[in-house]
């Protein structure tokens, strides 16, 4: 399963690679990383339908996670991939907006990787 992680923090890549070390090794998951919304869209345009799951941060310079979500869910991809939003602000407003725009799940930072793994396994 190909998972696209979108976050402006580049260290997220290392973190994910280490956290999902075994899974990557076993070939359960394939992670690709984009460091902005724009970069994510670019990837999706090039590799349509490859990414089954998108994990996106909300607060990013430029295109925000929510904007990215809106684009993914409404305009381009059919069937749209599963999109999980991750934010440092676990407030109701962000949560509601994300839900309205069609986010499949909503995670707050710090990310609980154990529960994330569980969720990913169910999707798989």
């Amino acid at each position: 399963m190909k998972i696209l992680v979108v976050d402006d923090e580049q260290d997220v890549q290392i973190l994910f690679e280490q956290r999902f070390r075994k899974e990557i090794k076993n070939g359960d998951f394939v992670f690709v990383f984009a460091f902005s919304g724009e970069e994510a869209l670019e990837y999706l345009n090039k590799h349509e339908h490859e990414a089954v799951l998108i994990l996106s941060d909300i607060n990013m310079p430029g295109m925000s996670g929510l904007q990215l979500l809106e684009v993914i869910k409404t305009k381009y991809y059919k069937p749209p991939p599963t999109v999980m939003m991750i934010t440092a602000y676990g407030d109701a407003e962000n949560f509601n907006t994300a839900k309205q725009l069609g986010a499949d799940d909503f995670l707050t930072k710090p990310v609980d990787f154990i529960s994330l793994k569980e969720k990913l396994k169910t999707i798989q």
Partner: protein
Amino acid sequence: MKSFIKIFLLCLLPAFSIAQIDRTWGYVTAKQADSLKRSVLTEKNDTIKMAAYRSLGFYYQEAIPDSGLYFHEKHLALAKKLNMKLWLADAYSQTGFTLTFTRNLTKAYEYHTEAMKLAGDEKSEADNWRPWTFSNSKNSHEARIAILGMNYQMMGNLWGALGDREKQKAYYLEGAKLGESINNGKVVFLSYNNLLGTFPSDSAILVTNKALKFAEASNFPRISGALLRLAINYADKKMWDSAFVFAQKAITNAKANNNLNGLVGHYKEVSLLFARQNNKDSCLYYAKKVLETAEVTGVPRHFVEAYRSLSNANQLNNKTDSAFKYEQLAHKLFDSLNNIRLANITKYQNFAFNEQLRLKKMDEEKTAYANNLKMMGLLAVLGGILVVAFILYHNNRQKQKANAVLESTLANLKSTQSQLVQSEKMASLGELTAGIAHEIQNPLNFVNNFSEVSAELTKELVDEVDKGNTDEVKAIAKDLKSNLEKINHHGKRAADIVKGMLQHSRSSTGQKEPTDINALCDEYLRLAYHGLRAKDKSFNATMKTDFDESIGNINIIPQDIGRVVLNLINNAFYAASLPSKGGFPESDKIHEPTIWVSTKKVGDKVLISIRDNGPGIPSSIKEKIFQPFFTTKPTGQGTGLGLSLSYDIVKAHGGELKVETKEREGSTFIIKLPVV
């Protein structure tokens, strides 16, 4: 033709000049008087004129006192005008003498007093024009003493007229002494003559002869009084021949000198002499002469003498009716005169008393005035000093009060200002808090995650060691090392954010330090962005940066400039998002809120530009934006101090803060800082 000859003859008449009366004490004959009266009218020289008036005064003073007074007053006026002290003294003296005749005793006293002052002052001797007029000497000192001596005589006469014989005698004697001191025949003669006239003496003939010798020696013409007294004295001794000879001499002399006053007395005395001899006709004859003379002078006193003489003569001639009639006339006139005299005396006594009082009072007043003046001066100075002192004191107090008020106001202002600055800092810190929390949250997450994952890796590491899978062990160890570095990196990142926050809230230490302006701008841009995102979840804006990497470090107070940058970025975000909220009238226009932060080195300056694509600043308020408390934000959302403080901070760095703006297109704030 006839009149022409007359005029011609008149012109030939030798004009009598004043020089000719030099040796006659100024006394003139009737002819000379006539000539003088004519010449004085055309005389241009005031001095000559004065001397002429003096002689004319002399000529008339004992004949027709009113006329004498007329000339003497002119004489006096000129002496005053010329301010010739001796002549003036003499003029006062002579005019006073004439005033005594006209019975204006008060004024006579004034004039004699004035003459006394002038002639008593040695300084008057500076006037030495024709001093021989007064003393038969070229010496002005002698002239002055002579004038003084004469004035004593006249003062004596005045006191005689007032009935004070004691004073009269004293003045005569004093005058005689003065006359003798300068051997002046006129003064000595007049003194003795006057004395004898008032105070009869057994040795009268001897003294009179002595006096006459003085007169002769000094060429003094008016000696009829002395001559008559000799006549009376001889008559007393029954030496009738001598008596009549001297009586005749006296009459001749009086006539020659136009001494009508003397003549009245002389005729009266001669009439009496004849009465004593029982020579009725001669007695009546001279009595009539008295009346004739009185009719010439018109002096009332002379009429009294005339009536008495006539009464006496008629009595002798057994004409009782006429005698009674004249006696009545004399009595009546005498009474009226006496009343005048009494009135004059009373007036005079009052005057004299008042004069004394006045002089005393004047003296006292002078002293009092001087004292008063001193006192007043002293008081005025004291008052002035007091006023000045009070003003100074008052001013000082006012100043102190004002200073105290100013100082407390200043202290209040300073404390208010520092409070405002602090509250502005805290307000901006508040705006930052959410951003800071987010900024700290991220590195902390990494720290936690990397440490957790490292703990898992350690377990795996042990497993792989047990398996003896050396390659895998190496790979894990490498990851562990990398993780620890990440933990360290993010820990530092969090620490830096906390440090920056503390610096932001701390009061400025005022310490400039080399600062990477690009990093500073970047940091505050992120803080501002996350701060706004934290407050307003729907907020978003595009941020574009363009940093000039060639700038390097510049010397600034980082927290202060950071505050400025933060403030400008916050404003830019606020402005950029305004059009989306109805800031532009065309609500359908697609607007992407964007801000641009750029740095650029231009010469020795660094420019930090913060641009937004907001509505721009209307020109009407462009001038006001740097003023304290000016804000366009809704009440409660802005302090209005941000730009004002920013402006001050940039200025304190020797830089400039400028704004370029275009309505509907946005604004650019440019911080220009010196590199050094």
